[in-house]
């Protein structure tokens, strides 16, 4: 389902995004603590520290859409604070580096926000229509 959605709608709106770097066919779910939340154009960046199964910490840098696009999909810069425990569905880099593309963020207060990147012009102008209630990706450990 996710794959179909991504492929069908990717013709518009990845204005400044990288296209080949991330594997859009898969979602993984990170659980971690926010180290940085950069609300800036052309892209937002969410840095999350993930404690792995072996006890080590790993820093993930996640690129999101532009603040302009995210505002139109209900985001606010203040929604994410450093130190927040979050779950994040992402498309990770194909080359294995701990970087990824934001898909959906699940905040500690229960708020769910989807990244509008890759959506059609109609969806961008119209706002999000469906938000998942829980992470959809394969848990990253």
């Amino acid at each position, binding site marked *: 389902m996710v794959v179909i959605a991504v492929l069908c709608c990717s013709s518009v709106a990845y*204005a400044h995004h990288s296209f080949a770097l991330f594997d859009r066919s898969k979602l993984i779910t990170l659980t971690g603590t926010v180290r940085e939340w950069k609300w800036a154009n052309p892209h937002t960046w969410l840095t999350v520290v993930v404690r792995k199964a072996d006890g080590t910490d790993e820093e993930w840098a996640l690129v999101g859409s532009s603040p302009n696009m995210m505002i139109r999909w209900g985001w606010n810069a203040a929604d994410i604070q450093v130190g927040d425990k979050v779950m994040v569905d992402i498309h990770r880099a194909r080359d294995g580096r701990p970087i990824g593309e934001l898909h959906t963020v699940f905040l500690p207060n229960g708020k769910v926000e989807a990244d509008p990147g890759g959506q059609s012009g109609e969806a961008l102008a119209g706002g999000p229509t469906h938000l998942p209630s829980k992470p959809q990706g394969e848990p990253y450990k």
Partner: protein
Amino acid sequence: MKPTPVSLLRDDPALGLRGCVCALVALVLASLPHDARAAAVAKSKDELAKTWREIAALPDFWQGTWQSVSPIADDFPTPPDYTPSALQYIKSYKPVEDSPFANCKPLGLPFVMNIGGMPMKFFQSPGMIALYIESSGMTRFIHTDGRVHDALPNPTFLGESIGHWEGDTLVVDTTGFVPETLFQMGKLASKALKQGDPSPLSGVIFGPHGPHLRLVERMRLADFNTLEIQTTIYDDTVFKRPYSLPPRRFIRGIERRNEPQEWACTDNRDFFDPTTGKLEYNSKDKAQSR
């Protein structure tokens, strides 16, 4: 030598019927002062009121904003008649692996109109239409005061735009570009593409445009909620004859969410490296030069 707008209009078969009228208009206009240094005269209160009334009767491009619903890349359904040098360029062209605009450098025309993701908004004032393009944070200034192009426009990313109305169609004629504006000169055949490549830029041929690149855009409302912009490209270093692209479509948004926003581009962690043709990533150096 730089061709005059009138001779170029006559070269375009789609505009041929209007050639005579345009020539007459151009003759009249040529007698008017159009030098940038010429003194402008302020309108009287009555003249201004009359101009605003005329503006009120124009097609409604003004309410809300316009969001692109066309693919980022232009399609070239009719094979362009390329010059030998353009053919040579295309033969050795390697498709970009990634977005060539993953940084804060302005795109300029023509490709700035293709980006979408964020809307654009028209503003009108006597003698000028402004078009704010959020995805670049830049505003096009389209002069509608009847001037003709400067003999030597100073080159810019958005060029020098002059507009006039032909019925309900706003015709915008633009020239005077810097060499580095992003220019799509064609599209690779689908068989040359990687199967299943989801990139909206797959197959795009970006390339250099000539110093006399000129665009004629025809902007019209297909219906209240749909704006169409059809662009014809004049560049004799690339196309032997002017190339008319299919119209691009935009939908109107009038909710608050659709209002225009500031675009300040300040964070360049990922960037396109033209030397490698790859998107590079640098999470540590936020002051990444472009």
